[in-house]
Structures are given as C-alpha cells and as structure tokens.
C-alpha cells in the first residue's frame, strides 16, 4: 500500500449549481424494484445518519444489515443533540432561501467546503422537516399550530426547528421508529452490541465488515454489496469532549488503513458554551446549548485577578468582549470565533472560576427585560441541568462556561455521491468530511446527517450498485478468514500486554497533548512536539496498558483499549494535517497566520483545497492528495463578523 498518492476526483456533475442535483438524479442509474432485494447493504451506525439511511434503503427494497455497538439503535450519540436543526423553509418570512443557507454554510465553513455538496444540502433541507413532521416528531409550535423557529449560532435568520432542548433525541427517535418498523417486518437485520473492527475490501471494493460481538466476544463477518459507515465523529480523541463516552474513530480509522482517504482531520470544532472542567475525575464535558447566547451576555472582569463575586462587579468594570469586538454579531458570533475569544481573555488572566478557565454567560439583563418566566420557558431545562451539575443557580449567578471539543468537520473523504476512495464504501453524517468546511454552523449537523441518510445516499448508492459488476463473496473464503484472524489477533495482543497503566490514563494523556498542541490554537513548534510525543505514548501503550479479563465475554476495558489504540494513531495524522496547513481557517487557527487584530488569516492562494490523506503502510509517512476547491458561485472573502 506504499507508493504514489492517488488523485481524488469529486465527480461533481456539470451544469449550473441550482440544477446539478436534479439533473444528477436523472442521470444516475436506477436499480429496478425487483432487483433491489438482491442487494445487501451493510449500514454501520444508527445515529441520525445511519438510522435514516437504513430505514430508507429498506423501504426502497434493499436488504439491509444494521450494525451498532450500542444495546439499542436509539442510544446513538445523536440522541444528545440539543439545540435544533436548520432548514431553508423561510416560514418566518425573514428572507431565508436555499441560496442563503448555502451561502451561510460555505462562509461559516470559511470557504473550505465543496460548493456543490453544500448547495444540495440546503436544497434538501426543507424535505427533512416535512419528513420528520410526517413521522410525528413533536417540534415546537406556535399557538396557531404552525411550526416555531428560532435563530441559532451565527445566523441572521430564524431557520432553526427545535423540540425543546431535545431536538436530537426527537429526530433520532423518529428515524429509530422508522428503522424499528423495518426490523419488525424482518426487512432490516439488526445487530446491536456489535462493533465493527475492520473493513472487508475484496477485489478493490468494500464488500463487508469484520465485527466483534461485544457480549460473546466472537469475531464475525458480514458480507454484502456495499458498506455505509455512519459511525459519527472522533472528538473523543481529546479524551474530554461533549461527545458520548463511547464515540470513537475505530470504524473510519480501519477504513483509512484499508485505503479510504481521510480528509482534513485537523478540522475540529471547539464549542464555546460548555460547563468548565471541575476536577481530574472529569469524564466528559457538558454542552450548554448555544441558543443560550440569544439571551445571555458573555463577559469577564475588565482587569485580571478580579476575585469579586460577579454581582459585585459594576457594569463599567465588565468587559462584554464579544459585543465589543464583534458589534454586528455580538454574543452570536460563530463558534470558532467565540471560542477563541474566550481562550484569549483567559490567557490574559481574566478568566473566572476556580482554575481561571471560564467566562460568564449572564442572564441578568434578559431576566430584567423579559421576566424570569419567559427565560424559564426558553431555557428551563438547560438551567436545571446547569444547576444540577454545578450546584449554582443561573437565575441568580451568571453561568460559567468554557470552550470544549464538540464536533469534527474532518472525516473520510467522499465524492459527490458520498462514496469514499474505496469503491462501494459510502460514508454519511459526521463520519464524512463533506459539508462544513473548516467550521460547522450550529444546527447543521443534524440537517446533514438526515439529508445524507434520507435523501442523498438512498439515490446515489443505487448508481453504484447498478454500475458495479459485483462477483459473489464467500463469507467463508480465505480473504475474509484472513482479516478475521487479524482482528482476533489484535484483541489477543491487547489482552496479553498485562501492563500497569489503565486505558483511561493513556487516553487522558493523549487528550492533553492534542488539546494543548492541536486544539484551539496551533503552531509549528507545538505540532512538532506533539508529533514526537504521540508515537512515544503509543509505544508505551502497547507495552504497558492494563486490560484485565478475557476476550470471550463483555469486557469494557478491552473495548476501550481498542478504541484508544486507534485514537493514538489518528491523533498523529491530525497533527500532520495541522502542520501542513500553515494558513488559519475556521476552527483551524495557526498562530503564524493571523491579521493585525488577531483574527484568522486564510491563504486561498495555497490552501483552497481539502487534504485527503492516504495510508501508505506501517512505518511510512502518509500521502496527501489535494482536492482543489473551486468557488464558482460564491466569492472568496475574508470572513468578518465585526
């Protein structure tokens, strides 16, 4: 697998942006209804992307095998999304349109996403809301019975649909119920408690996966005609993040090692409004929905070391730094900008809370203006959640917040059809790199997951199946057996180390390295240090990790060990990617590349591309192919929220 970089071809259809998808749908080959049931599609993951895809593919008549490591499809990480989902419905009549959503997404992503994909996303966004309402998703309503909308992180129109602070839960339950309906009919063969540990690539095509049954420990294969990865993001490489604890990169990492290119791994989103770390036992960080910034004002004391209680600090001695620096957007400045600004004031010694790593999010003025009742209506459950965790009442004391890792824009590279560089391997949802460029806008991940799963992949995968000539694959054939043996051996190796340090101890240390050197701000020297430290840590891991128990039953320490082993490899690629991109863009802030007033400075001449990394074999430096990003419709401009 060494040798030359393989060029990547996005296969964007020709023609005007507005009609590409319509025309492409017509141009793609169809699989006839009677033939669909001859094809087996393996869908890994049952979050918004995976559940919607599996249900839809099965409704279309394909045979679907579903895989998740959770005990039920309903527990996928998507369940935790709070704030909402965007769609260009323009119900509030405030000037939204497909083009505006497209434009905002491209600009929000700091011009590092592919125009054609983003336009299509905006185009199908409206269908998602229709579909979800038909399924019974209880979105918020106005008194007249119409759907309610709100504006969300960085948008100047109200295009966000929501179900209290539980939008992800309700959207996922909608998709889950559609999926369970198909499972009940016998049309989807669902395997919970099953973790994908490798990809079966046979004759150059993805033909299945190898997985381990987490209850029995048995390693087994699932073969079919195409594979869909909907396995979510890799934010947990940082150890502490807002992601669910089990979220991991193993599926995409193993696909990468089998030949799928991985794009822009250094693009990770740090969310500005999370509850600060309280101690070293901390296992995850809790997101406080961004919607809070609609009414809360962000500030820190004007001078460093001011230890007075927030209520005792007079107005004149507060610095509402977002309102000061970004008067047009104020507290609603996009995530990357708001996060960096928080880091800056804390670096200046003006942070609040025990470790000085926090800023205030204050509702005093909003409560005075609107009354506590209205604020409770809007954010009651979030306030409760905050109080439960911190033991402080945000109606009386301002919240303390700090940025935390939240979302990964990077992921497996896919073409316009959402297919990776391995033919037959399709990637949807957060697991792919496609639509958010270098920074994702709030409420756009749910939109993308469901767009991919309900409305895009079910079409494009048909084109692949109808065009590919697929020979039969024997589940017992030597190629399959060999990869199964690989997987089983790796598990045995982890168990045989019998070292002294726990998996979590390694993971925490890795997280600290990546957070400090490949987090909110990166520089050449720091990245090079990380690139020296990570391989050392990895070597120590393989000599000294402690994994008790056996491989023949439920063994959560073993599961974690496998995931952290992969994080230890992925982290290195993230740093390499961050090192080669010497510009700043979106969430990727290279300290060497900033404007006079400290804003991110893009370099379009040299970096208007997606970096598609390719595995080159053990011990070899990975290769990088560059997909040039052509901006035919939107003019490249320096992003300004001033």
């Amino acid at each position, binding site marked *: 697998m060494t040798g030359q970089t393989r060029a990547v071809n996005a296969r964007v259809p020709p023609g005007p942006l507005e009609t590409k998808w319509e025309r492409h749908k017509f141009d793609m080959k169809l699989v006839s209804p009677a033939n669909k049931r001859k094809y087996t599609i393996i869908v890994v993951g049952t979050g918004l992307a995976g559940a919607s895809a599996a249900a839809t593919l099965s409704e279309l008549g394909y045979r679907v095998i579903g895989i998740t490591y959770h005990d039920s499809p309903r527990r996928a990480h998507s369940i935790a999304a709070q704030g909402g989902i965007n769609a260009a419905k323009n*119900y509030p009549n405030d000037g939204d349109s497909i083009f505006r959503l497209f434009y905002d997404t491209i600009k929000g992503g700091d011009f590092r996403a592919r125009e054609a994909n983003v336009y299509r996303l905006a185009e199908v966004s409206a269908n998602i*809301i229709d579909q979800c309402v038909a399924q019974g998703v209880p979105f918020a309503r106005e008194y007249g019975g119409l759907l309610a909308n709100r504006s969300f992180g960085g948008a100047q129109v109200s295009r966000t649909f929501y179900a209290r602070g539980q939008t992800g839960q309700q959207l996922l339950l909608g998709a889950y119920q559609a999926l369970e309906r198909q499972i009940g009919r016998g049309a989807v063969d669902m395997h919970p408690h099953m973790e994908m540990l490798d990809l079966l690539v046979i004759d150059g095509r993805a033909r299945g996966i190898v997985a381990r049954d987490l209850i029995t420990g048995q390693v087994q294969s699932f073969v079919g005609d195409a594979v869909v990865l909907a396995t979510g993001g890799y934010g947990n490489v940082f150890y502490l993040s807002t992601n669910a604890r089990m979220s991991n990169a193993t599926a995409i990492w193993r696909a990468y090692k089998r030949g799928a290119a991985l794009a822009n791994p250094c693009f990770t989103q740090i969310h500005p409004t999370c509850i600060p770390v309280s101690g070293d036992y901390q296992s995850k960080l809790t997101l406080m929905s961004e919607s809070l910034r609609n009414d809360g004002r962000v500030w820190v004391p004007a001078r460093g070391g001011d230890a007075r209680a927030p209520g005792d600090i007079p107005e004149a001695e507060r610095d509402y730094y977002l309102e000061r620096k970004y008067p047009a957007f104020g507290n609603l400045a996009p995530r990357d900008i708001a996060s960096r600004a928080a880091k800056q004031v804390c670096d200046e010694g003006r942070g609040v809370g025990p470790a000085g790593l926090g800023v205030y999010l204050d509702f005093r003025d909003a409560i005075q203006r609107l009354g506590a009742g209205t604020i409770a209506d809007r954010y009651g459950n979030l306030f409760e959640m905050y109080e439960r965790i911190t033991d402080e009442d945000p109606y009386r004391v301002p919240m303390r917040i700090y940025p935390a890792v939240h979302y990964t824009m990077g992921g497996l590279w896919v073409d316009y059809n959402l297919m990776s560089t391995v033919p037959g391997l399709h990637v949807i949802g957060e697991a792919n790199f496609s639509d958010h460029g270098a920074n994702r806008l709030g409420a756009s991940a749910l939109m993308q997951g469901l767009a991919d799963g309900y409305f895009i992949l079910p079409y494009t995968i048909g084109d692949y199946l109808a065009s590919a000539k697929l020979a039969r694959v024997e589940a017992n054939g030597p190629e399959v057996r060999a990869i199964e043996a690989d997987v089983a051996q790796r598990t045995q190796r982890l168990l045989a180390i019998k070292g002294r340090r726990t998996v979590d101890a390694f993971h925490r240390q890795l997280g600290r390295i990546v957070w400090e050197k490949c987090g909110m701000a990166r520089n050449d020297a720091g990245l090079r240090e990380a690139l020296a430290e990570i391989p050392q840590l990895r070597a120590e891991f393989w000599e000294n990790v402690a994994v008790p128990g056996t491989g023949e039953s439920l063994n959560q320490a073993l599961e974690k060990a496998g995931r952290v082993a992969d994080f230890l490899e992925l982290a290195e690629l993230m740093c390499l990617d961050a090192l080669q991109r010497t510009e700043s863009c979106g969430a990727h802030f290279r300290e060497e590349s900033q404007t006079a007033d400290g804003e991110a400075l893009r370099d379009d001449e040299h970096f208007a591309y997606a970096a598609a990394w390719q595995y080159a074999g053990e011990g070899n430096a990975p290769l990088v192919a560059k997909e040039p990003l052509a901006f035919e419709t939107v003019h490249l401009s320096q992003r300004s929220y001033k």
Partner: protein
Amino acid sequence: MDFTLRVWRQAAPGTPGRFVDYPAPGISPDASFLEMLDVVNERLIEQGHEPIAFSHDCREGICGSCAMMIDGVAHGPVAGAAACQVHMRSFRTGARVTIEPWRSVAFPVIKDLVTDRSALDRIIQAGGFITAPTGGARDANEILVPKDAADAAMDAASCIGCGACVAACPNGSASLFTAAKLTHLGLLPQGQPERSRRTLGMVAQMDREHFGHCTLFGECQDACPKQISIDAIARMNRDYLHAVITARPERSGGGTG
C-alpha cells in the same frame, strides 16, 4: 468523601452473582455517580481486577444507557435524574451504597450491572411508529398541531427508554414505557390513522415479553428520570378498550393484477 460500595457482581447471563464490597475513599463531591464508579474501576484495574461493568454513554441523562438500582431506588436519590446525573454531594460521606442491576425477568443480566433491555425495542417494533416512508411527505406546515397537544406529546416523547419504570414496578410492568410512546403518537394528528392498531400491537407485545401487569402503584412515575406522568397509562387503557371494541379483521388490499 469516603464511601463503601456494595456492588452486584455477576460474570455472565444465567450464572449466580453476589454482592462484593469495595472501599471508595477520596471521592470529590462534584463527581457524578458514574465518575465515582470510574475512579473505583481505575483502581481495580491497577490492581489487576476486572472493573465493574455498567452501561453508560451520554452521561447527561438522555441516551438511557445508564441503569442501576442505587440503595434500592432506580437511578438513585435525585428525582427526575438518571444515574449519570446524580452527584456524590447527594450522599453522606461514610455511607454504604448498594448498587444493583435492574431486576426484572424481562431484563436478564448480561454482566454485573448490565442488563438486556431489547424487549423495549421489540415493543416499538410492534407499532411504536407512524408509517411514513421517506419521500412524499407534504409541507410540514400543512399539518397544524395545537401548541398544547404538541407540548403534551413532547412531554411523553421525552422517554429515554432506560427501563427504570420496569425496575421500579413491583409487578415489573412496562406500562409507562409503552403508554408514553402511545401518548406521544396518539396526541398528534399524524398518529391518528394507526392509533388503534398501534395500541393493540404494543400492548400485545408487552405481554409476550413477560412484563407484569400494571396495577397502578405509581412507582414508575416516581422513578422516571423524565418524570413522565402515569396519566399516560390511563390514556393507554382507554385507547386499548376502544381498540378492542372496534377492532375489525385486517384485509389485505391490492389484488393480483
């Protein structure tokens, strides 16, 4: 803070289990209950022992993974919270804390505190959905839903499928879980066409899964981390009666041509 844990350890399904005591000294009051278990597990691993297996994922009370009886109470001492949302400041230092898996014939133990709750998925399969295949949905605002109906549907829909209601019920009934889904879908205009069919299907499945019968003890609503009201069960019973009375044999349509 210092605790002594009394934890149910069971190696595999169908094997005998037993309580084992573990000291848990030096725990921060700000640690969550699951973070406390993490700390204990880290120490166990360092000593070469197998950690206590427990289900968890989101750690913010929404995925429904975490599931344990804490001192005999499903999800522990904090009302309206899942085990992952309980913090150690809710306990007295020096306390002895007993931790067990859900106890229900319908939820066999897999290992330690981990149980098999797939029966709940099968109840959903039996009708807990609105049949609306992808594509062809009409514009969302063509369906008007009064705000109070939407709000009440959302209250019921907030169920996280953890199974605490079953674990807390002296009869081991899954009525609150089932009724919550029936209420969510039954309150919405989109849910009307299948309302009776849904009720009959889900109730029948509940019986097949060896859940007990509901005698309206009300323990379930106290244990529910989302505080779903037992009113849902009354509604389910009414709908069930109506569905039984009006049930007609289903006919397949279409013909052969």
